[in-house]
């Protein structure tokens, strides 16, 4: 296949998405640690933390960021090491399905509270 790989915007979106999602996850990590606070965590306080609407929304953004970030990262690993096109396609599709499934489960856990 003869594809131009240095054309305008080729890969730029992914490059940018990787950085934006990284910053979102970094911000969430700090917010999560601050919200968790000090002292022992009980089931009630743990549940109350995720029962807050803003925390759920923040966690949703975090999960969405993990989904995109992990997709780009894992796809890059497949692209680097798996030379067989068919096998790579299978692995990439499996990665997407796996990640979307994980994100769905995360949403289920959060909105069940």
């Amino acid at each position: 296949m003869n594809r131009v790989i240095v054309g305008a915007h080729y890969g730029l979106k992914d490059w940018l998405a990787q950085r934006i999602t990284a910053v979102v996850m970094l911000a969430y990590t700090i917010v999560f640690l601050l919200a968790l606070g000090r002292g022992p965590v009980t089931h009630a306080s743990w549940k109350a933390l995720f029962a807050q609407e803003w925390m759920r929304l923040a966690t949703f953004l975090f999960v969405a960021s993990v989904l995109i970030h992990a997709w780009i990262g894992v796809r890059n690993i497949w692209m680097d090491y798996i030379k067989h096109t068919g096998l790579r396609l299978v692995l990439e599709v499996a990665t997407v399905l796996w990640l979307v499934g994980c994100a769905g489960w995360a949403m289920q856990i959060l909105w069940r509270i």
Partner: protein
Amino acid sequence: MPDLAAKKKRPLWYNLSPLNLPAPGLVSIFHRVSGALLFLGLIWFLFLLDMSLASEAGFARFRAYVGNPLVKLSMLVLLWAFLHHLCAGVRHLFLDIEVGVELKAARRSAIAVFAVSLALTALIGARLW
């Protein structure tokens, strides 16, 4: 004119063994390894979150589960993976805006990534243990 055809035939020998990589190269390969580990650990995090949030009994089961030494060790590995990935990522963002791209600064920040992530892993690990 140098003979380009002859030049191209020269054997290339890149030693890419981790033991021969300079610090920034080590940060880079461990960034990939830790990212892959976190991807594999994703389902386990969800399993733990599900168990701990489900019910009072689930939370108690979660407590007992993470008390297992093997589970603790796995969590320690994933904690390191998270911290290394985070520190290396922050370093990467600075390199993107051309802060610390000089060789000396880049080597220093690479060593700092290892020092900070390993120290934080030890600190948090000691507190959780």
